[in-house]
C-alpha cells in the first residue's frame, strides 16, 4: 500500500514531506479514492468485519509503531491502554450493566475516556522510559498482565470476568454508527486522522527530537534536550491514538471484558506492527489487514484443500512466519525491495538514473 520515493534510512521517510497536496503521490489519491467508494462494491461483511476491524486494530498498532518506530521503545501496553479507554466508555457511558455504568452524555464520556487512557499511558511511560530494550518490553508486559488480572478480579468497577456488554456508539446525527457502512466510514475517518496526526507529529520539532533521542540519547541530552520528558510525552501521544482505536474496537464488539486486553491480544498488536512494518505509519494498517484476513479465512483455506479445520492456527502462524522470514521489516519491506528491484531492472530501458529516489 505504501508507494513512496523517500529514503528508507529511518525517520524522514513519509510521503507527506513538505506542505501542500501537490506532494502527495498519485497512488495515495488512488488508494484513498478506492477506500472512499468501497461501500459501492464491498458487502457488509467486508465493510464491517474485515475493514472495520482492520482499522481498529491498525490504529492501536499505529500507536505502537509511533513508540517503536520513532521513539525506539517497544511497548506491550498499547492494547491495555486501548482496553482501558473502552472500559472508560462502558463505565462512564451506557452499557448492559446498569448498576455500574454512569450514563453520561457522549460529549463528556468520549473525551474523558481518552484523557483517562492518556493519563494511564503517561504513568506507564514514566515507569518504562527509565529502562531500555528488553526491559521496556518486560515492564510493559508486566503492567499489561496486571491490568488483565485486576479487571478479571475487580467486580465493583470493571465487573470482573464478564466485563460490559451492549456498549454501543452514541446515535449522532440520526445515524446508527454500528451499521456496516456507517461504521466503515467512522473507522476509516478515524484511521486517516490518526495516520495524519502521527505523520504530522513525526515532522514536528517534537517528533524530530524524539527520533534524535531514539538514535543517540546521550548526544541529545548534551544538546540540552530533556530525553525523559520527550519519551514520556511520546507515551502520552501514543496513548491518545490507542484510546481512539480502543473505543472503536469496543463499539465494534459492543463489549469489553478482561480478555479484550489479555496476553494473547497484547501480543497480537505486536505481531500486527511487526508484520506490517514499524518503519512507517502505514505499516500497522497493512499488518492489521493481513492479520484480519488470515484469522478470518484460514479455516476456509484449510477446508478448501480438504484438510481438517482444527489446524487453522497453522496457516495463521505460517503466514506470519513467512512475512517475517522473507522480510524482517514486515510487509512494507517486501514492497520496498520489490520496487527497488523493478527500478534497477527498468533503468536501461527508461533511461532513468540509477540513483532515482534513493537520495
Amino acid at each position, binding site marked *: *500500500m505504501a508507494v513512496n520515493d523517500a529514503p528508507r534510512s529511518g525517520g524522514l521517510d513519509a510521503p507527506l514531506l513538505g506542505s501542500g497536496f501537490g506532494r502527495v503521490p498519485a*497512488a495515495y489519491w488512488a*488508494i484513498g479514492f478506492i477506500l472512499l467508494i468501497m461501500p459501492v462494491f464491498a*458487502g*457488509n*461483511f467486508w465493510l*464491517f*468485519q474485515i475493514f472495520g*476491524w482492520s482499522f481498529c486494530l491498525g490504529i492501536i498498532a499505529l500507536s505502537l509503531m509511533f513508540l517503536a518506530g520513532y521513539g525506539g521503545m517497544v511497548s506491550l501496553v498499547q492494547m491495555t491502554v486501548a482496553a482501558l479507554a473502552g472500559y472508560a466508555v462502558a463505565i462512564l457511558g451506557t452499557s*448492559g450493566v446498569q448498576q455500574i455504568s454512569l450514563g453520561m452524555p457522549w460529549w463528556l464520556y468520549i473525551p474523558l475516556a481518552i484523557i483517562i487512557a492518556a493519563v494511564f499511558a503517561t504513568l506507564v511511560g514514566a515507569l518504562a522510559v527509565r529502562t531500555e530494550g528488553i526491559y521496556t518490553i518486560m515492564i510493559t508486559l508486566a503492567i499489561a498482565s496486571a491490568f488483565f*488480572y485486576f479487571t*478479571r*478480579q475487580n*467486580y465493583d468497577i470493571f465487573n*470482573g*470476568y*464478564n466485563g460490559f*456488554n*451492549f456498549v454501543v456508539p452514541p446515535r449522532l446525527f440520526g445515524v446508527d454508527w454500528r451499521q456496516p457502512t456507517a461504521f466503515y466510514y467512522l473507522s476509516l475517518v478515524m484511521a486517516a486522522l490518526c495516520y495524519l496526526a502521527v505523520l504530522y507529529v513525526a515532522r514536528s520539532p517534537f517528533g524530530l527530537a524524539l527520533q534524535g533521542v531514539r538514535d543517540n540519547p546521550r548526544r541529545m541530552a548534551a544538546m540540552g534536550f530533556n530525553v525523559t520528558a520527550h519519551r514520556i510525552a511520546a507515551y502520552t501521544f501514543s496513548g491518545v491514538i490507542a484510546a481512539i482505536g480502543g473505543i472503536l474496537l469496543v463499539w465494534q*464488539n*459492543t*463489549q469489553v*471484558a478482561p*480478555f*479484550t486486553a*489479555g496476553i*494473547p491480544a497484547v501480543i497480537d498488536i505486536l505481531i500486527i506492527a511487526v508484520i506490517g512494518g514499524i518503519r512507517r505509519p502505514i505499516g500497522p494498517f*497493512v499488518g492489521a*489487514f*493481513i492479520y484480519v*484476513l488470515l484469522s*478470518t*479465512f484460514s*479455516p*476456509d*483455506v484449510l*477446508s*478448501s*484443500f480438504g484438510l481438517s*479445520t*482444527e489446524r*487453522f*492456527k497453522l496457516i495463521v502462524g505460517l503466514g506470519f512466519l513467512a512475512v517475517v522470514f522473507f522480510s524482517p521489516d514486515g*510487509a512494507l519491506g*517486501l*514492497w520496498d525491495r*520489490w520496487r527497488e528491484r523493478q527500478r534497477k531492472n527498468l533503468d536501461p530501458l527508461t533511461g532513468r538514473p540509477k540513483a532515482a529516489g534513493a537520495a
Partner: protein
Amino acid sequence: MNWTKRSLLGLAGAFALSWGLSAPAAAQQQPPIRIGILVALEGAFAAGGRDAVRNVELALRQVNHTVAGRRIETIVAPTDTRPDTAVRQARKLIEQDRVDFIIGPLSGSEGIAIRDYAKTIPDRTIINGISGALEMTWVDPAPNVFRFNLDGAQWGSGLGTYVVRNKGWRRIATVSADYSFGYTNFLGFAVDFCRAGGTIVQRFWVPLGAADFGGVIAQLPDNVDAIYLGMGGTDAINFLNQWQQAGAGTRLIGGTIMADQTVLSARGRAKDALIGTPTSGPLAEDNPDPAWQNYVRLYREAFPANERFNSPSLFGVGYFIATSAAIAGLNAVNGDLSDGQRRFNAALSSLKLATPLGEVSLNENRQATGTVFVNEVAEGPGGTLVNRMVARVDGVNQTLGMTAEQFRAMGLPSRTNPDCRALGGG
C-alpha cells in the same frame, strides 16, 4: 497493495475451488441446507471442541447428511472461547458463508455474547452447542436461540439433596472458581443443598488459573462435614496436590467439572483424594439407559480409537444433541426454512426430543428441562479412577423447581448468591 491483492486473489481462488468441488453434489436436487458449527478449537477446551465436531458429524451420518431430500453441508468456524471471537465468527458464518442456522457456541461467556448477537439476525436460528451460562436463556433471552442442554445451575442441582439425605453431610465450606461458570454451577448446588437443610459455613472464591491455594486451604474450617470444590482442569489438580500436602482432612464434594476425565486421568496420586467424592452433571458414563449405551457404541464404532475419547465428552454429547434437535426440527417442517424460519423455530420449541440423556423438552425461554446425574468417584481396574452413577434426578427445570418469580427474586449467580438462610438452610 500488491501483496494484499495477491493474497486476496489467492483466497478468492481457494473459494472458487472449494465451491466448484462441492457444487455438483448439490446441483441434483434442492439447494443444500448449510449449517455453521461455532466451536472452540483453541484454548483450554480445544480437545472438547474437536470432540464436538466429531459428534456433529456422527449425528449427521445417522441421516446420511440428508434431511427431507435436502443435503446438509457444514462449515466449521473455530473460536478461542473469547466472546468477541465467537461473535466475529458467527457473523462470518451468517454474512459471508450464508449458513441457514448455527450450532454453537461451546463456552459460557460465548453463549451470552451470541444471545445478544442473535437479536440482530431474527431470520436465522441459533441452537446452542454446550454453553452453560444461565444468562443465555434466562436474562432477556433471544427468540431465535434454543438450548437443548441443561445450564450450569441445573448441572449442580440434585447433588445437594444427595449429600444431605444419603451422606448426612450438613455443614460444609465451599471453594469455587471466581468466574461465571463457577458461580452458576455453585448456585445450582447451593440452592438444592440449602433447601435440603444444609448449612454453608464459609465461601471461598479462587481466581481461574491460580497456582497457589495454600492461603485458602489454611483458612478452611475444621468443624465441617465436607468441602465443596467447584474447580476444573489444572486448577482442580493443583488444588488437590496442595490439599494432600496440607494433610487432606475432610471429605469432598465436587462441582460438575471437578472429577471429569481431564482430572481423573491426570498423573500423580493427588487425585486419589477424590475417591468417594460425589459430583453431579449432565451425564454418567456408566448410565445403563439403552439410549446412552447405544449412543456410546455408535460413537466408538464411528471413529478409530486414537481419534476419539473412550467415551463421548460432555462437549461432544452437547453438540450431538443440538445436531439431533436440528435434524428433528428440519424433519418437522420438511426442510422448509422460508418465512424467516418461523415455522422451523416453532417446531424446535415444541420438540420432545429423545436424546442419549433421556427426553428433553424446552420451556418458554427455549431452555431445556432434563435429567441430572449424580456420580461418585471410585477406584477402577489398575488403580484408575472412574465415575460411578449413584443417582439421577429427572425433570430438572431452568428455575430449579422454583417459580420464575422466586428464582428471579433470588438474583443472578454471584459470589454472594444464593442466600442459604432464605432457602431454609443455615
